[in-house]
């Protein structure tokens, strides 16, 4: 078992966002989490690396219960479990290459020059090597996101959390990102957890999908399960209909 989430609850003030979410994710799986805006998709994956703490429940990452670890104890977990944030979060005082070089410099003990050299190779994998010396503010959202993916992958994590990796990407880059994620799973055995609204990604690369609704898992299953479900809420979501039983 790569990841196990057991009955996680989380509120912010009055807002009860997660009301008992349980999921199990296998090693090497490409697992999608879908659901309407504000349902708590970002919240749940932030729990996995201890950026948020549950009010109740347990989260296991490769067997380690992370919800009660101290910040320092979380560092080894975060080296194995990388995250690409929803809004790419590149450090804007640095160039793209320096962004990617930072984890190498900090954790691989590389000098700046060695790290930059490797960073350029990493940027090439997401076809961003031409922008190595650009500052993030000079790039569009989609390009920033690709750099952020390169940065998250520098330490060769065994689990990667992608928060909407294809949102704001053009269709071609989006499909390339899908291919990259699938390749990570198939070739390198990485466990990928992808939060996404992108139906094309979902129905091309997902092994399993969980749909969150009203703070719990509404449906968990394969692409086929989602295509053939009778659940009207799920149908409305994946068919993208404005009218239906779904409450937002």
């Amino acid at each position, binding site marked *: 078992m790569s990841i196990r989430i057991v009955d996680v609850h989380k509120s912010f003030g009055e807002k009860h966002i997660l009301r008992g979410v349980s999921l199990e994710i296998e090693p090497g799986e490409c697992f999608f989490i879908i659901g309407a805006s504000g349902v708590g998709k970002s919240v749940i994956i932030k729990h996995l*690396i201890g950026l948020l703490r549950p009010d109740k429940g347990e989260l296991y990452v490769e067997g380690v219960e992370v919800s009660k670890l101290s910040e320092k104890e*979380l560092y080894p977990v*975060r080296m194995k479990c*990388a995250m690409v*944030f929803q809004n790419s979060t590149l*450090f804007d005082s640095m160039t793209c290459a320096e962004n990617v070089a930072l*984890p190498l410099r900090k954790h691989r003990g590389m000098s700046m020059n060695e790290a930059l050299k490797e960073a350029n190779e990493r940027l090439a994998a997401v076809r961003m090597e031409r922008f190595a010396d650009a500052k993030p503010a000079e790039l569009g959202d989609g390009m920033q996101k690709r750099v952020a993916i390169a940065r998250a992958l520098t330490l060769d994590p065994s689990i990667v959390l992608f928060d909407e990796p294809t949102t704001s990407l053009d269709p071609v880059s989006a499909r390339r990102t899908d291919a990259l994620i699938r390749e990570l799973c198939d070739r390198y055995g990485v466990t990928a957890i992808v939060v996404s609204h992108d139906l094309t990604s979902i129905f091309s690369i997902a092994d399993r999908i969980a749909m969150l609704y009203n703070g719990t898992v509404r449906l968990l299953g394969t692409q086929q399960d989602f295509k053939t479900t009778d659940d009207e809420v799920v149908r409305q979501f994946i068919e993208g209909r404005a009218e239906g039983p779904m409450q937002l």
Partner: protein
Amino acid sequence: MGPYERGELMAGPDGALLAFPRFLGERVLALASQVGGVGILLKDVLVRLSPSQIDRLELFRNLGRMGVKSVPIISATAAFTGGIMVIQAAPFVQQFQAEAFIGWAATFTTFRELGPLLIALIFNGRVGANNTAELGTMKVTDQVDALRALSIDPVSYLVVPRILAMVSMMVVLCVIGDAVALGGAVLTADLLLDVSPNLFLSSAVERLEVWDFGLGLVKSLLFGLMIALMSCYYGLATKGGAPGVGRAVNASVVASASGVFIVDYLLTFIL
């Protein structure tokens, strides 16, 4: 809704009577949590001060942009301060023919008090405010969480180099400021009072003690620490998007300036 309005919402005289103590209580609690927060930050910084943990690149980057780039404005302030001290003293010097004292009189207050204080206030406005805005923006755009997600400790990586840079640069800027202020004073005395640079300098050198200069440096160091801690604390405590960054900068500048005056008062009293 301000605390007073909340009090008024409660019916009857009780509500109105309670409003003020409640307001006071809330302010005291807020202040206590901020003082506590700054204290915790100081502790977090101190336990991370081993040389191997310090990110040299960040340190040098901050030394450059916080220190080197402050030299022009600090020099301008210092030159005028030195000159102004002489102009202020001029009527008395002429009245009592105390040309032999002017060098000492102008430099004594500048070195001990005005120099460090004015430099600190300008440093607060230029570097402290900038620092809070930068950290605050990083916080509200999740860049601080991104560091944590990369297993990089934000205090080690962001705060420690900034604090070291700000403290050391305040001391260096104070030395530069003292030198420039002396130049400004010599020049003004020469032009305005016809006191020769020689006479001015010998009066300063004879009567000034090393400690007058040293006290200024000690003050600068503590002012620098104050500004550094406050600006990092308020930066990292920022919440609520762009307006939050604005509020944080505001709070940081006010708190640092108040802190500088309090430290100055206590130090002048003790030392």
